[in-house]
Protein backbone atom coordinates (compact mmCIF):
# COMPACT_ATOMS: atom_id res chain seq x y z
CA UNK A 1 0.00 0.00 0.00
CA UNK A 2 2.81 2.41 0.96
CA UNK A 3 4.58 1.56 -2.32
CA UNK A 4 1.43 2.51 -4.30
CA UNK A 5 1.20 5.84 -2.50
CA UNK A 6 4.86 6.62 -3.29
CA UNK A 7 4.35 5.60 -6.92
CA UNK A 8 1.25 7.78 -7.15
CA UNK A 9 3.13 10.77 -5.70
CA UNK A 10 5.96 10.26 -8.21
CA UNK A 11 3.46 10.18 -11.07
CA UNK A 12 1.83 13.38 -9.87
CA UNK A 13 5.21 15.12 -9.63
CA UNK A 14 6.15 13.94 -13.11
CA UNK A 15 2.83 15.11 -14.47
CA UNK A 16 3.23 18.47 -12.78
CA UNK A 17 6.64 18.95 -14.35
CA UNK A 18 5.32 18.01 -17.77
CA UNK A 19 3.46 21.35 -18.07
CA UNK A 20 6.15 23.28 -19.89
CA UNK A 21 6.11 27.03 -20.32
CA UNK A 22 8.34 30.02 -20.74
CA UNK A 23 7.85 33.34 -18.96
CA UNK A 24 9.10 36.73 -20.14
CA UNK A 25 8.63 39.94 -18.20
CA UNK A 26 8.69 43.09 -20.31
CA UNK A 27 9.35 46.18 -18.20
CA UNK A 28 9.91 49.89 -18.76
CA UNK A 29 13.03 51.85 -17.72
CA UNK A 30 13.92 51.22 -14.08
CA UNK A 31 14.57 54.85 -13.11
CA UNK A 32 13.14 58.33 -13.30
CA UNK A 33 9.84 57.80 -11.50
CA UNK A 34 8.11 59.97 -8.97
CA UNK A 35 5.21 59.65 -6.60
CA UNK A 36 1.96 58.77 -8.35
CA UNK A 37 3.55 57.46 -11.56
CA UNK A 38 2.18 54.39 -13.25
CA UNK A 39 4.34 51.47 -14.35
CA UNK A 40 3.23 49.13 -17.09
CA UNK A 41 4.48 45.57 -17.10
CA UNK A 42 3.76 42.89 -19.63
CA UNK A 43 4.16 39.23 -18.83
CA UNK A 44 4.36 36.84 -21.80
CA UNK A 45 3.83 33.18 -20.98
CA UNK A 46 4.35 30.78 -23.86
CA UNK A 47 2.95 27.27 -23.34
CA UNK A 48 1.83 24.26 -25.32
CA UNK A 49 -1.67 24.24 -26.68
CA UNK A 50 -4.11 22.91 -24.13
CA UNK A 51 -2.31 24.47 -21.17
CA UNK A 52 -4.60 26.92 -19.47
CA UNK A 53 -3.70 29.88 -17.33
CA UNK A 54 -5.49 29.87 -13.98
CA UNK A 55 -6.66 33.47 -13.82
CA UNK A 56 -7.44 33.09 -10.14
CA UNK A 57 -3.71 32.88 -9.52
CA UNK A 58 -3.12 36.38 -10.92
CA UNK A 59 -2.85 39.33 -8.54
CA UNK A 60 -6.10 41.16 -7.95
CA UNK A 61 -6.36 44.86 -8.81
CA UNK A 62 -6.24 47.02 -5.70
CA UNK A 63 -3.80 47.93 -2.97
CA UNK A 64 -0.90 45.45 -2.96
CA UNK A 65 0.99 47.06 -0.09
CA UNK A 66 1.29 50.43 1.58
CA UNK A 67 2.84 52.13 -1.43
CA UNK A 68 1.93 49.97 -4.41
CA UNK A 69 -1.41 49.75 -6.12
CA UNK A 70 -2.36 47.50 -9.02
CA UNK A 71 -4.70 49.61 -11.11
CA UNK A 72 -5.48 47.20 -13.92
CA UNK A 73 -4.74 43.68 -15.03
CA UNK A 74 -5.74 42.26 -18.39
CA UNK A 75 -4.95 38.75 -19.56
CA UNK A 76 -5.28 37.75 -23.21
CA UNK A 77 -4.80 34.37 -24.84
CA UNK A 78 -3.51 34.04 -28.40
CA UNK A 79 -2.37 31.17 -30.56
CA UNK A 80 1.10 31.71 -32.02
CA UNK A 81 1.31 28.59 -34.18
CA UNK A 82 3.64 25.63 -33.85
CA UNK A 83 1.35 24.07 -31.28
CA UNK A 84 1.93 26.88 -28.82
CA UNK A 85 -0.28 29.36 -27.02
CA UNK A 86 0.81 32.67 -25.60
CA UNK A 87 -0.79 34.42 -22.65
CA UNK A 88 -0.23 38.15 -22.50
CA UNK A 89 -0.80 39.74 -19.11
CA UNK A 90 -0.79 43.53 -18.96
CA UNK A 91 -0.33 45.00 -15.50
CA UNK A 92 -0.53 48.67 -14.56
CA UNK A 93 0.93 49.53 -11.19
CA UNK A 94 0.85 52.90 -9.47
CA UNK A 95 3.38 53.98 -6.88
CA UNK A 96 2.46 56.05 -3.84
CA UNK A 97 5.72 56.44 -1.99
CA UNK A 98 7.33 59.73 -1.01
CA UNK A 99 11.08 59.22 -0.70
CA UNK A 100 13.36 61.77 0.91
CA UNK A 101 16.05 60.92 -1.65
CA UNK A 102 16.32 58.67 -4.68
CA UNK A 103 15.21 55.29 -3.42
CA UNK A 104 15.08 51.82 -4.86
CA UNK A 105 11.78 50.00 -4.54
CA UNK A 106 10.77 46.55 -5.71
CA UNK A 107 7.56 45.35 -7.22
CA UNK A 108 7.09 41.93 -5.64
CA UNK A 109 7.23 38.67 -7.58
CA UNK A 110 4.18 36.48 -7.93
CA UNK A 111 3.42 33.00 -9.16
CA UNK A 112 0.97 32.08 -11.88
CA UNK A 113 -0.61 28.64 -12.07
CA UNK A 114 -0.83 26.79 -15.38
CA UNK A 115 -3.18 23.83 -15.76
CA UNK A 116 -3.42 20.98 -18.22
CA UNK A 117 -6.22 18.63 -17.37
CA UNK A 118 -5.62 17.48 -13.83
CA UNK A 119 -2.01 18.62 -13.83
CA UNK A 120 -0.74 22.00 -12.83
CA UNK A 121 2.52 23.89 -12.49
CA UNK A 122 3.53 27.22 -11.02
CA UNK A 123 5.58 29.74 -12.92
CA UNK A 124 7.27 32.62 -11.13
CA UNK A 125 7.02 36.13 -12.50
CA UNK A 126 10.14 37.78 -11.10
CA UNK A 127 10.31 40.85 -8.90
CA UNK A 128 11.36 44.11 -10.52
CA UNK A 129 13.30 46.95 -8.94
CA UNK A 130 13.29 50.59 -9.91
CA UNK A 131 14.26 53.90 -8.41
CA UNK A 132 11.91 56.62 -7.27
CA UNK A 133 12.86 60.29 -6.88
CA UNK A 134 11.39 62.96 -4.61
CA UNK A 135 9.50 65.93 -6.01
CA UNK A 136 10.39 68.32 -3.21
CA UNK A 137 13.60 69.43 -1.69
CA UNK A 138 14.39 68.12 1.78
CA UNK A 139 14.10 71.51 3.43
CA UNK A 140 10.55 72.70 3.87
CA UNK A 141 9.68 75.44 1.45
CA UNK A 142 7.63 78.25 2.90
CA UNK A 143 5.55 80.98 1.38
CA UNK A 144 3.42 83.72 2.87
CA UNK A 145 0.60 81.29 3.66
CA UNK A 146 2.81 78.72 5.40
CA UNK A 147 4.14 75.50 3.93
CA UNK A 148 4.27 75.74 0.18
CA UNK A 149 1.73 73.65 -1.65
CA UNK A 150 0.34 73.76 -5.12
CA UNK A 151 -2.72 75.99 -5.47
CA UNK A 152 -6.28 74.87 -6.08
CA UNK A 153 -7.33 73.84 -9.53
CA UNK A 154 -9.36 76.53 -11.24
CA UNK A 155 -12.69 75.45 -12.62
CA UNK A 156 -12.65 75.41 -16.41
CA UNK A 157 -15.38 77.31 -18.19
CA UNK A 158 -17.85 75.20 -20.12
CA UNK A 159 -17.20 75.06 -23.82
CA UNK A 160 -20.09 75.51 -26.21
CA UNK A 161 -18.07 74.80 -29.35
CA UNK A 162 -19.72 71.45 -29.99
CA UNK A 163 -23.17 72.94 -29.34
CA UNK A 164 -22.47 75.78 -31.78
CA UNK A 165 -21.33 73.31 -34.45
CA UNK A 166 -24.40 71.14 -33.95
CA UNK A 167 -26.67 74.17 -33.97
CA UNK A 168 -25.13 75.43 -37.23
CA UNK A 169 -25.48 72.02 -38.88
CA UNK A 170 -29.07 71.78 -37.68
CA UNK A 171 -29.78 75.31 -38.93
CA UNK A 172 -28.30 74.44 -42.33
CA UNK A 173 -30.47 71.32 -42.49
CA UNK A 174 -33.50 73.42 -41.55
CA UNK A 175 -32.71 75.83 -44.38
CA UNK A 176 -32.27 73.00 -46.86
CA UNK A 177 -35.43 71.12 -45.95
CA UNK A 178 -37.46 74.33 -45.51
CA UNK A 179 -36.19 75.65 -48.84
CA UNK A 180 -37.13 72.44 -50.56
CA UNK A 181 -40.64 72.55 -49.07
CA UNK A 182 -41.12 76.21 -50.08
CA UNK A 183 -39.91 75.42 -53.55
CA UNK A 184 -42.12 72.35 -53.68
CA UNK A 185 -45.20 74.41 -52.78
CA UNK A 186 -44.31 77.10 -55.30
CA UNK A 187 -43.35 79.87 -52.91
CA UNK A 188 -40.00 80.25 -54.64
CA UNK A 189 -41.33 80.10 -58.22
CA UNK A 190 -40.51 83.73 -58.77
CA UNK A 191 -36.86 83.10 -57.87
CA UNK A 192 -36.69 79.86 -59.83
CA UNK A 193 -37.96 81.44 -63.05
CA UNK A 194 -35.45 81.43 -65.82
CA UNK A 195 -35.00 84.50 -67.92
CA UNK A 196 -35.83 83.44 -71.47
CA UNK A 197 -37.29 86.43 -73.29
CA UNK A 198 -34.82 89.01 -72.05
CA UNK A 199 -31.78 87.43 -73.74
CA UNK A 200 -33.89 86.68 -76.82
CA UNK A 201 -34.92 90.36 -76.98
CA UNK A 202 -31.32 91.50 -76.63
CA UNK A 203 -30.32 89.25 -79.53
CA UNK A 204 -33.28 90.46 -81.60
CA UNK A 205 -32.03 94.01 -81.21
CA UNK A 206 -28.80 93.03 -82.94
CA UNK A 207 -30.51 91.41 -85.96
CA UNK A 208 -30.70 93.14 -89.35
CA UNK A 209 -33.88 93.40 -91.44
CA UNK A 210 -32.76 90.45 -93.55
CA UNK A 211 -32.21 88.02 -90.65
CA UNK A 212 -35.87 87.16 -90.31
CA UNK A 213 -35.27 83.40 -90.01
CA UNK A 214 -33.12 83.94 -86.95
CA UNK A 215 -35.66 86.40 -85.56
CA UNK A 216 -38.57 83.95 -85.77
CA UNK A 217 -36.36 81.15 -84.48
CA UNK A 218 -35.47 83.22 -81.40
CA UNK A 219 -39.08 83.95 -80.48
CA UNK A 220 -40.24 80.38 -81.22
CA UNK A 221 -37.31 79.05 -79.19
CA UNK A 222 -38.19 81.24 -76.21
CA UNK A 223 -41.85 80.18 -76.32
CA UNK A 224 -40.86 76.52 -76.62
CA UNK A 225 -38.61 76.89 -73.61
CA UNK A 226 -41.42 78.39 -71.54
CA UNK A 227 -43.87 75.73 -72.67
CA UNK A 228 -41.38 72.92 -72.12
CA UNK A 229 -41.91 71.49 -75.60
CA UNK A 230 -42.40 72.81 -79.16
CA UNK A 231 -45.34 75.17 -79.15
CA UNK A 232 -47.66 75.30 -82.16
CA UNK A 233 -50.57 77.62 -82.79
CA UNK A 234 -53.06 74.88 -82.00
CA UNK A 235 -51.57 74.49 -78.53
CA UNK A 236 -51.89 78.14 -77.55
CA UNK A 237 -54.94 77.45 -75.41
CA UNK A 238 -53.03 74.86 -73.41
CA UNK A 239 -50.08 77.28 -73.15
CA UNK A 240 -52.29 80.02 -71.71
CA UNK A 241 -53.78 77.51 -69.26
CA UNK A 242 -50.34 76.60 -67.96
CA UNK A 243 -48.93 80.13 -68.09
CA UNK A 244 -51.84 82.39 -67.36
CA UNK A 245 -49.60 85.42 -67.04
CA UNK A 246 -49.20 85.48 -70.83
CA UNK A 247 -52.94 85.50 -71.35
CA UNK A 248 -52.88 89.27 -71.89
CA UNK A 249 -50.76 88.71 -75.00
CA UNK A 250 -53.27 86.27 -76.44
CA UNK A 251 -53.91 88.39 -79.54
CA UNK A 252 -50.27 89.30 -80.04
CA UNK A 253 -49.18 85.70 -79.81
CA UNK A 254 -51.90 84.57 -82.22
CA UNK A 255 -50.78 87.25 -84.67
CA UNK A 256 -47.18 86.11 -84.21
CA UNK A 257 -48.08 82.56 -85.21
CA UNK A 258 -50.08 83.87 -88.20
CA UNK A 259 -47.15 85.99 -89.25
CA UNK A 260 -44.79 83.05 -88.82
CA UNK A 261 -47.03 80.81 -90.93
CA UNK A 262 -47.28 83.42 -93.66
CA UNK A 263 -43.53 84.02 -93.61
CA UNK A 264 -42.51 80.37 -93.77
CA UNK A 265 -45.40 78.87 -95.74
CA UNK A 266 -47.12 81.75 -97.54
CA UNK A 267 -46.58 85.28 -98.64
CA UNK A 268 -45.93 88.05 -96.17
CA UNK A 269 -46.93 91.59 -97.14
CA UNK A 270 -44.78 93.14 -94.43
CA UNK A 271 -41.27 94.39 -94.98
CA UNK A 272 -38.32 92.89 -93.16
CA UNK A 273 -38.01 95.95 -90.93
CA UNK A 274 -41.67 95.76 -89.89
CA UNK A 275 -41.36 92.04 -89.09
CA UNK A 276 -38.26 92.52 -86.97
CA UNK A 277 -39.90 95.45 -85.15
CA UNK A 278 -43.00 93.35 -84.37
CA UNK A 279 -40.85 90.49 -83.14
CA UNK A 280 -38.91 92.88 -80.90
CA UNK A 281 -42.10 94.39 -79.47
CA UNK A 282 -43.61 90.98 -78.76
CA UNK A 283 -40.42 89.74 -77.18
CA UNK A 284 -40.17 92.87 -75.04
CA UNK A 285 -43.72 92.44 -73.76
CA UNK A 286 -43.03 88.79 -72.97
CA UNK A 287 -39.82 89.76 -71.17
CA UNK A 288 -41.74 92.25 -69.02
CA UNK A 289 -44.29 89.60 -68.06
CA UNK A 290 -41.45 87.21 -67.36
CA UNK A 291 -39.91 89.74 -64.98
CA UNK A 292 -43.21 90.37 -63.29
CA UNK A 293 -43.31 94.00 -64.43
CA UNK A 294 -46.38 93.77 -66.55
Amino acid at each position, binding site marked *: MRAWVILLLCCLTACSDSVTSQVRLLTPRPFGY*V*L*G*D*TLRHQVLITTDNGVKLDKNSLPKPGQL*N*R*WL*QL*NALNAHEESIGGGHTRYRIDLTY*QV*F*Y*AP*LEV*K*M*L*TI*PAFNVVLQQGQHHAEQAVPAW*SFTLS*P*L*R*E*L*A*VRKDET*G*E*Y*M*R*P*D*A*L*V*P*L*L*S*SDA*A*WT*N*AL*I*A*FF*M*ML*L*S*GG*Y*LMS*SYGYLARFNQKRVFKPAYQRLLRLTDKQLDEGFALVHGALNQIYGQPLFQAQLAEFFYQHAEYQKLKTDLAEFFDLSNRYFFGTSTLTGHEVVTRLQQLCLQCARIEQGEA
Partner: protein
Amino acid sequence: MRTAYKRGLAYLVLGISASVWGWQALDIMRNAETNALINDYAKGLEPAIGNLRQAKPEVLLARALFLKQHKRYDDALAALSLTSGFTEPRLQVLLRYNLGNIYLEQAVAKAETMSINDAMPLVALAKQAYRQALSIDSHYWDAKYNLEVAMRLLPEMDKINSGDDENPPNKKAPLWTTVPGFPRGLP
Protein backbone atom coordinates in the same frame (compact mmCIF):
# COMPACT_ATOMS: atom_id res chain seq x y z
CA MET B 1 -46.41 59.90 -55.08
CA ARG B 2 -42.73 60.62 -55.49
CA THR B 3 -43.32 64.28 -54.60
CA ALA B 4 -45.36 63.31 -51.56
CA TYR B 5 -42.56 61.03 -50.41
CA LYS B 6 -39.97 63.79 -50.86
CA ARG B 7 -42.14 66.26 -48.98
CA GLY B 8 -42.61 63.78 -46.15
CA LEU B 9 -38.88 63.28 -45.93
CA ALA B 10 -38.32 67.04 -45.99
CA TYR B 11 -40.85 67.52 -43.15
CA LEU B 12 -39.06 64.81 -41.15
CA VAL B 13 -35.64 66.42 -41.67
CA LEU B 14 -37.10 69.82 -40.85
CA GLY B 15 -38.63 68.52 -37.63
CA ILE B 16 -35.50 66.73 -36.47
CA SER B 17 -33.16 69.58 -37.34
CA ALA B 18 -35.45 72.11 -35.65
CA SER B 19 -35.47 69.98 -32.50
CA VAL B 20 -31.68 69.62 -32.54
CA TRP B 21 -31.26 73.34 -33.15
CA GLY B 22 -33.56 74.20 -30.27
CA TRP B 23 -31.85 71.77 -27.93
CA GLN B 24 -28.40 73.05 -28.81
CA ALA B 25 -29.50 76.67 -28.47
CA LEU B 26 -30.80 75.83 -24.99
CA ASP B 27 -27.49 74.14 -24.20
CA ILE B 28 -25.54 77.21 -25.29
CA MET B 29 -27.69 79.45 -23.10
CA ARG B 30 -27.28 77.15 -20.09
CA ASN B 31 -23.51 77.04 -20.59
CA ALA B 32 -23.42 80.82 -20.74
CA GLU B 33 -25.35 81.02 -17.45
CA THR B 34 -23.03 78.49 -15.81
CA ASN B 35 -19.94 80.33 -17.04
CA ALA B 36 -21.32 83.59 -15.67
CA LEU B 37 -21.68 81.99 -12.23
CA ILE B 38 -18.16 80.54 -12.38
CA ASN B 39 -16.78 83.95 -13.35
CA ASP B 40 -18.65 85.58 -10.48
CA TYR B 41 -17.07 83.19 -7.97
CA ALA B 42 -13.64 83.72 -9.56
CA LYS B 43 -14.07 87.49 -9.11
CA GLY B 44 -14.78 86.99 -5.41
CA LEU B 45 -18.53 87.52 -5.66
CA GLU B 46 -21.06 85.13 -4.17
CA PRO B 47 -23.99 84.91 -6.55
CA ALA B 48 -27.34 83.76 -5.21
CA ILE B 49 -28.16 80.23 -6.27
CA GLY B 50 -31.64 78.97 -5.55
CA ASN B 51 -31.07 75.25 -5.20
CA LEU B 52 -27.47 74.12 -4.92
CA ARG B 53 -28.46 70.50 -5.44
CA GLN B 54 -29.49 71.31 -9.00
CA ALA B 55 -26.39 73.32 -9.76
CA LYS B 56 -23.87 72.03 -12.26
CA PRO B 57 -20.74 70.42 -10.80
CA GLU B 58 -18.56 73.17 -12.25
CA VAL B 59 -20.57 75.74 -10.30
CA LEU B 60 -20.25 73.71 -7.11
CA LEU B 61 -16.50 73.39 -7.62
CA ALA B 62 -16.19 77.13 -8.18
CA ARG B 63 -18.28 77.77 -5.08
CA ALA B 64 -16.14 75.43 -2.99
CA LEU B 65 -13.03 77.24 -4.22
CA PHE B 66 -14.52 80.59 -3.27
CA LEU B 67 -15.52 79.33 0.19
CA LYS B 68 -12.10 77.82 0.83
CA GLN B 69 -10.41 81.09 -0.08
CA HIS B 70 -12.59 82.71 2.57
CA LYS B 71 -11.62 80.00 5.10
CA ARG B 72 -15.17 78.69 5.20
CA TYR B 73 -13.94 75.11 5.08
CA ASP B 74 -17.11 73.39 6.28
CA ASP B 75 -19.22 75.19 3.71
CA ALA B 76 -16.70 74.31 1.03
CA LEU B 77 -16.84 70.63 2.01
CA ALA B 78 -20.63 70.78 1.97
CA ALA B 79 -20.55 72.22 -1.56
CA LEU B 80 -18.18 69.50 -2.74
CA SER B 81 -20.26 66.79 -1.13
CA LEU B 82 -23.08 67.72 -3.51
CA THR B 83 -20.89 66.77 -6.47
CA SER B 84 -20.52 63.16 -5.38
CA GLY B 85 -23.05 61.99 -7.94
CA PHE B 86 -21.07 63.29 -10.90
CA THR B 87 -18.83 60.73 -12.52
CA GLU B 88 -17.05 62.61 -15.29
CA PRO B 89 -13.33 61.79 -14.77
CA ARG B 90 -12.09 65.32 -15.54
CA LEU B 91 -14.34 66.78 -12.85
CA GLN B 92 -13.64 63.96 -10.44
CA VAL B 93 -9.91 64.75 -10.63
CA LEU B 94 -10.53 68.44 -9.92
CA LEU B 95 -12.96 67.57 -7.14
CA ARG B 96 -10.53 65.17 -5.42
CA TYR B 97 -7.58 67.51 -5.81
CA ASN B 98 -9.39 70.54 -4.42
CA LEU B 99 -10.85 68.38 -1.66
CA GLY B 100 -7.32 67.29 -0.75
CA ASN B 101 -6.23 70.92 -0.70
CA ILE B 102 -9.03 71.83 1.71
CA TYR B 103 -7.93 69.10 4.13
CA LEU B 104 -4.22 69.75 3.68
CA GLU B 105 -4.52 73.49 4.22
CA GLN B 106 -6.37 72.91 7.47
CA ALA B 107 -3.87 70.24 8.51
CA VAL B 108 -0.92 72.53 7.90
CA ALA B 109 -2.62 75.25 9.92
CA LYS B 110 -3.24 72.82 12.78
CA ALA B 111 0.32 71.56 12.61
CA GLU B 112 1.66 75.09 12.81
CA THR B 113 -0.19 75.52 16.08
CA MET B 114 1.02 72.09 17.22
CA SER B 115 -2.50 70.64 17.29
CA ILE B 116 -1.13 67.31 16.14
CA ASN B 117 -4.15 65.21 17.03
CA ASP B 118 -6.37 67.45 14.98
CA ALA B 119 -3.94 67.57 12.07
CA MET B 120 -3.46 63.81 11.66
CA PRO B 121 -6.93 62.81 10.45
CA LEU B 122 -6.98 65.81 8.13
CA VAL B 123 -3.67 64.77 6.55
CA ALA B 124 -4.95 61.23 6.16
CA LEU B 125 -8.05 62.53 4.39
CA ALA B 126 -5.94 64.78 2.18
CA LYS B 127 -3.71 61.86 1.18
CA GLN B 128 -6.72 59.75 0.36
CA ALA B 129 -8.19 62.51 -1.84
CA TYR B 130 -4.90 63.05 -3.71
CA ARG B 131 -4.48 59.32 -4.27
CA GLN B 132 -7.96 59.14 -5.70
CA ALA B 133 -7.17 62.04 -8.03
CA LEU B 134 -3.96 60.37 -9.16
CA SER B 135 -5.70 57.04 -9.68
CA ILE B 136 -7.83 58.77 -12.29
CA ASP B 137 -5.07 60.95 -13.77
CA SER B 138 -1.55 59.81 -12.97
CA HIS B 139 -0.08 62.82 -14.83
CA TYR B 140 -1.60 65.41 -12.50
CA TRP B 141 1.61 66.99 -11.19
CA ASP B 142 0.00 69.33 -8.70
CA ALA B 143 -1.69 66.38 -7.01
CA LYS B 144 1.64 64.52 -6.92
CA TYR B 145 3.37 67.48 -5.33
CA ASN B 146 0.72 68.07 -2.69
CA LEU B 147 0.50 64.37 -1.91
CA GLU B 148 4.22 64.46 -1.25
CA VAL B 149 3.67 67.47 1.04
CA ALA B 150 1.04 65.48 2.91
CA MET B 151 3.19 62.37 3.09
CA ARG B 152 6.12 64.36 4.48
CA LEU B 153 3.75 65.84 7.02
CA LEU B 154 2.51 62.40 8.03
CA PRO B 155 5.00 59.76 6.88
CA GLU B 156 3.77 56.23 6.45
CA MET B 157 5.89 53.93 8.51
CA ASP B 158 5.14 50.53 7.05
CA LYS B 159 8.16 48.41 6.24
CA ILE B 160 9.25 48.86 2.65
CA ASN B 161 10.74 45.71 1.14
CA SER B 162 13.36 47.37 -0.92
CA GLY B 163 16.44 45.37 -0.13
CA ASP B 164 19.22 45.89 2.33
CA ASP B 165 18.65 49.57 2.95
CA GLU B 166 15.69 48.91 5.18
CA ASN B 167 15.92 48.75 8.96
CA PRO B 168 15.09 45.39 10.58
CA PRO B 169 11.45 45.12 11.54
CA ASN B 170 10.47 46.33 14.95
CA LYS B 171 9.02 43.48 16.94
CA LYS B 172 7.11 45.78 19.26
CA ALA B 173 3.62 46.62 18.19
CA PRO B 174 3.59 50.35 17.45
CA LEU B 175 1.10 52.46 19.30
CA TRP B 176 0.41 54.49 16.14
CA THR B 177 0.36 53.08 12.64
CA THR B 178 1.48 56.51 11.47
CA VAL B 179 3.23 59.28 13.33
CA PRO B 180 3.23 62.94 12.50
CA GLY B 181 6.49 64.32 11.31
CA PHE B 182 7.39 67.81 10.37
CA PRO B 183 10.72 67.63 8.63
CA ARG B 184 12.19 71.04 8.69
CA GLY B 185 15.03 69.98 6.47
CA LEU B 186 18.70 70.51 6.64
CA PRO B 187 20.15 73.50 8.49
